[in-house]
């Protein structure tokens, strides 16, 4: 087993499923991030106004309003009751992410995700120590702090430093000094703390995690009996504490990854050479047992080192 864990992450999956197969969800995710960014950029770049505005608030095809519910919450606490347009937009976003998983926003839409993913890629390449790892609850404390500060100052507080909307707005309306903020976050994730920003600090992610705590779309380790302990899923998962309860659960426990911290990024599905994981819904707690003739894995000989 130790030999396996020393293999490059994802190599085995790439050998078994092909490179595309082992990067399916990663590619889809990058495409999705690019898609949502392009939707906003088509207007200012090419004059095709499908979506106007930014991730904070937008208007699609001149009618559909969408508003960031986290910003709206801060606005409410800061003492402003928004107009119906913004409230409607916030509700639509809230319901959508409550269904598909709040942190889908983090891994499939947020423009900071490619930045921190790149920092993490380099972090792995340079084999750096994981560094400062704040407790899992830290981002919830920060979330509470942001809401309290909004109430005390009467200002939508997180927008003063929110790198997500700043980068997004920067790309659409003009960067200013946002690049300095992006470099700061990259350095933070590269040197100070592995998965530091998205995994431990960002209150936007914490907020969306809470929204999607009971979401329908879930990853399940249904085929966990086939797990050969290669540890690749733990290596690629940005929130790898969410895996164990599902993957290593005793018989009779749910194979579903139910933690609100899971971003539904699907990288665990990609890197698993024996296809332990799959997307499903939260009521599908079906576990594949080795006696199941259809999907039972063949016993595998130890691979050469």
């Amino acid at each position, binding site marked *: 087993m130790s030999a396996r864990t020393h293999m490059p992450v994802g190599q085995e999956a790439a050998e078994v499923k092909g490179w595309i197969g082992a990067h399916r969800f990663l590619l889809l995710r990058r495409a999705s991030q690019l898609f949502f960014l392009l939707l906003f950029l088509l207007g200012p770049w090419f004059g095709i106004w499908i979506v106007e505005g930014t991730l904070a608030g937008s208007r699609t095809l001149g009618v559909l309003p969408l508003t960031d519910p986290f910003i709206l919450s801060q606005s409410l606490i800061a003492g402003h009751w*928004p107009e119906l*347009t*913004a409230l409607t937009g916030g509700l639509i976003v809230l319901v959508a992410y409550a269904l598909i998983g709040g942190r889908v926003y983090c891994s499939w839409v947020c423009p900071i995700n490619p930045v921190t993913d790149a920092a993490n890629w380099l972090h792995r390449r340079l084999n750096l120590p994981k560094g400062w790892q704040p*407790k899992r609850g830290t981002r919830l404390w920060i979330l509470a702090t942001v809401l309290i500060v909004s109430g005390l100052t*009467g200002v*939508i507080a997180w927008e*003063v430093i929110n790198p997500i909307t*700043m980068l997004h*707005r920067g790309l659409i309306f003009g960067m200013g000094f*946002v690049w300095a903020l992006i470099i700061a976050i990259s350095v933070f994730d590269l040197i100070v703390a592995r998965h530091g920003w998205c995994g431990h600090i960002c209150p936007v992610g914490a907020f969306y995690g809470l929204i999607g705590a009971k979401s329908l779309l879930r990853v399940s380790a249904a085929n966990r009996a086939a797990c050969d302990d290669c540890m690749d899923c733990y290596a690629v998962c940005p929130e790898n504490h969410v895996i164990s309860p599902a993957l290593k659960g005793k018989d009779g426990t749910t194979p579903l990854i139910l933690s609100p911290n899971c971003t539904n990024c699907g990288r665990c599905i990609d890197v698993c050479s024996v296809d332990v994981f799959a997307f499903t819904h939260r009521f599908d707690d079906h576990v594949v047992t080795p006696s199941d003739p259809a999907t039972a894995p063949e016993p595998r000989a130890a691979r050469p080192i």
Partner: protein
Amino acid sequence: MPLAGTPLSPQRRRFLQDAARAAGGCVVAGTLLAYLARDARALPAEALRPPGALPEDDFLSACIRCGLCVRDCPYDTLKLAQLGADAGATGTPYFTARDVPCEMCDDIPCVAACPTGALDPALDNIDDAKMGVAVLVDQENCLNYLGLRCDVCYRVCPVIDEAITLEPSHNTRSGHHAIFAPTVHAERCTGCGMCEKSCVLPEAAIKVLPARLARGSSADHYRKGWEEKDAKGAPVVEGIIDLPDRLPGPGTDNLAAPGGYEPGYSLPGIGQ
């Protein structure tokens, strides 16, 4: 059992320590964030908010910085403040009158675009907008004050003859010309900035300033005697005798001041 003898659970101690540490960290981070948030309230005087913008304190609790007002501005007047630029809280909309003034569209598309009401939808007549107040800041360089007839700020004003009037007075330099002083009437000025944009000088002599800088205020308890007198139709103080004013001029016993001369013109408002 005496309470003092109860052994405290190590988990409880650990939990309390962790909670205290997290709370302490949050107080520090929160203080920093509050400082930044309050700092963001300082809007530079040249940066004017779009029409209908709530007062700055309320605006920062309402504006989600989405940029839809910027998108719907047909004259590209509005911009979003960029991080590090000297233009107020990052991502909030503003305009600089000397660059592109507000054209005061009748349908106020920026207000219609605002999803949150940071630009108040109650503003339905653009003439009621209060983006700032024009102030003739430099009388020494203003061409009209020098006795010339530039008049550009007056001519371009969308609320001409109400927001800006030309007030004639004697030109003491030439002795026989008039000075037509551009005079702003704040209650009608919308702060659109057309005057500042059009001022022909290299640096505008008339500028739109936020009301907090442009205006003084009258104390609540002040009463203007002449208005009170008009309202009452009689002297405000009972029994006061209004003696005739002894001024130079025909019809009085003071045709000319001792050793003086007959004035060449009559002061306005001093008739007999």
